[in-house]
């Protein structure tokens, strides 16, 4: 019992687990820790082993709504994805994920392009896209802030954190701020329930977020937006 994390002293603030990509404690991971230097940018989007293809970082810092969807390196990526599945239909979700990453949302035109690329009926692709909650059907802000309010986070102040994000950004749920920086939504359990409140901002998790952390997080994001 000499681990400092285990000592709860009388009268101190409740213990907070040092989080993942979070703002607390010495346990902060940098992007390089997570991805390794070689993962930031250089393997985009056609590098790496095809086994990792559907999950490789086509996580782009800046969305490019006008990028040609399935040309050049992106075409190569689709071919890699296709090589991992026995049917073209099975590549649909990985390919939609890629398009979503690139464009930030899935428009009707994107769906049509995906359908034609994979030889699937347009209505089918529309049906699949609308089934999955991660696909934004309209553009969102530069930062999509998703706050978990499911039970574990709810018990520990998730709703208050959500309210603070809405108040500080001056938006309504699901609305984008006038400067196009922030869209705040509520999300179901992010599988980080021991680190409440769990918040996902774009691809990154912020954990142990309290109402007091909201303003500094937004400042940090504004700094990143430049």
């Amino acid at each position, binding site marked *: *019992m000499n*681990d400092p*994390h*285990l000592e*709860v002293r009388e009268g101190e603030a*409740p*213990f907070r*687990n040092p989080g*993942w*990509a979070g703002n607390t404690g010495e*346990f902060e*991971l940098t992007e390089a820790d*997570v*991805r*390794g230097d070689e*993962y930031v940018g250089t393997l985009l989007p056609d590098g*790496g*082993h*095809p*086994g*990792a293809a*559907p*999950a*490789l*970082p086509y*996580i782009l810092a800046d969305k490019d709504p006008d990028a040609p969807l399935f040309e050049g390196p992106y075409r190569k990526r689709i071919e890699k994805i296709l090589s*991992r*599945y*026995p*049917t073209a*239909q*099975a590549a649909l*979700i990985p390919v*939609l*994920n890629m398009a*979503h990453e690139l464009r930030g949302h899935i428009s009707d035109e994107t769906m049509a392009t995906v359908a034609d690329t994979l030889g699937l009926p347009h209505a089918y692709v529309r049906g*699949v896209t609308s*089934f*999955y*909650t*991660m*696909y934004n059907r309209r553009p969102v802000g530069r930062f999509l802030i998703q706050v978990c309010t*499911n*039970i*574990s986070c*709810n*018990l*520990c102040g998730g709703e208050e954190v959500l309210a603070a994000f809405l108040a500080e950004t001056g938006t309504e749920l699901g609305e984008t701020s006038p400067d196009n920086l922030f869209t705040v939504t509520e999300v*179901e*359990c*992010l*599988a*980080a*329930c*021991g*680190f*409440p409140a769990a918040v996902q901002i774009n*691809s*990154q*998790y912020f954990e142990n977020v309290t109402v007091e952390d909201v303003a500094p997080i937004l400042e940090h994001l504004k700094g990143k937006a430049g």
Partner: protein
Amino acid sequence: MAYPYTHEREVRMLSRGWGDPASRSLAGWRALGGYEGLARAFELGREGVIGAVSDAGLRGRGGAGFPTGLKWSFMPKEKAGPHYLCCNADESEPGTFKDREILRWSPHQLIEGCLIAAYAIRADHVYIYCRGEFFETNLILARAVEEAYGAGLAGTDILGSGTTIDLTVHQGAGAYICGEETALMTSLEGDRGLPRMKPPFPAASGVFGRPTTINNVETLAAVPHIVRNGAAWYRQWGTDKSPGTKLFCVSGHVNRPGNFELPMGFPMEELIEDVCGGIPEGRRLKAVIPGGASVPVMDASECEGCTLCYEGVQEKGSMLGCASVIVMDETTNIVKQVRRMVDFFAHESCGQCTPCREGTTWMARTLRRIEEGRGRVGDLDTLVELSEQMTGTTICVLSDSAAAPVISSIEKFREDYLALMPGAALAGAS
């Protein structure tokens, strides 16, 4: 640095190496004995591996606790085409946060488990179906997969055994229902994640119409240790019916929430009081959900003497599920929390079955009305009746899951519901 929430009573098997970024790499995992289990598996042969896992008594950690060795033995011995292994990494049951820790701290542990399982069931390809939200986690896993390919641990002729196994990291796109095994397969095929009727069972006709086995991340992560050290070694922990260690995800009102790897059968009171440092500010315990949002709620008296293993929690009328222990203290508004869980199930219902689609929405609406002080005493009977109609009548058990917290909370916390109803006391409710 130690994993932030270690405790002296923890066992370090699955959580070995957590907290040390070095153990994410192949070299780091090898330094902890990694891939020795895989080499041992090729010595034991397929039947030997299945025998060891059966003898160890490993049970599925995805929630149902089905014996893993038995599940593997259902796979056909003769091959008429490809076999598949799906690793269920779609972790999204509220209260559950263990698989993500395995994925991000020891991805090679999972990969090794996948390879051994795939070898045993003659699978040609392993799809690791990862939750869409896990971007960073998936990157860590993807990088480990590349490393495994680079080191000849995946692909053709693994470790000179003549066995070929491919691994693919598949990223989902956000849908709780895709964690259900048949929905996972439909989703992997590129469709909406709709559960299918069983039979046919996956071992006969699974993903892409081929024999398939689906296992949870934690289940597969335990396999290398069992194969390397033997069934008797694994059985040093746990009970006869629930051998081994388990990752307990504790959340809610405790001083130290987190993941703790403990022997099966660990007493719940000690988990809360000792390992998790008790309830903040000395408040009293009100209720515990022992296995994630889909299992019945327990009241404080049921928690007394409850041991955390499949049979121990069942004796107390609930289920161990994924051992996601959600602790609620006396300040908790039970009706609100149950409503929040039902909202979740209503949102996640795939809509194929009427009792589930209509039932979850109706329950959510009724609960919200009660929460807002506009409930009627008759509502409780309606909710119980509705819950009964939603149990055992649908394609998958999401519907049963949604009903469980409702029925159990009305039974155990009826007073809390009545307290929100104007005039309930006068009406002589019960």
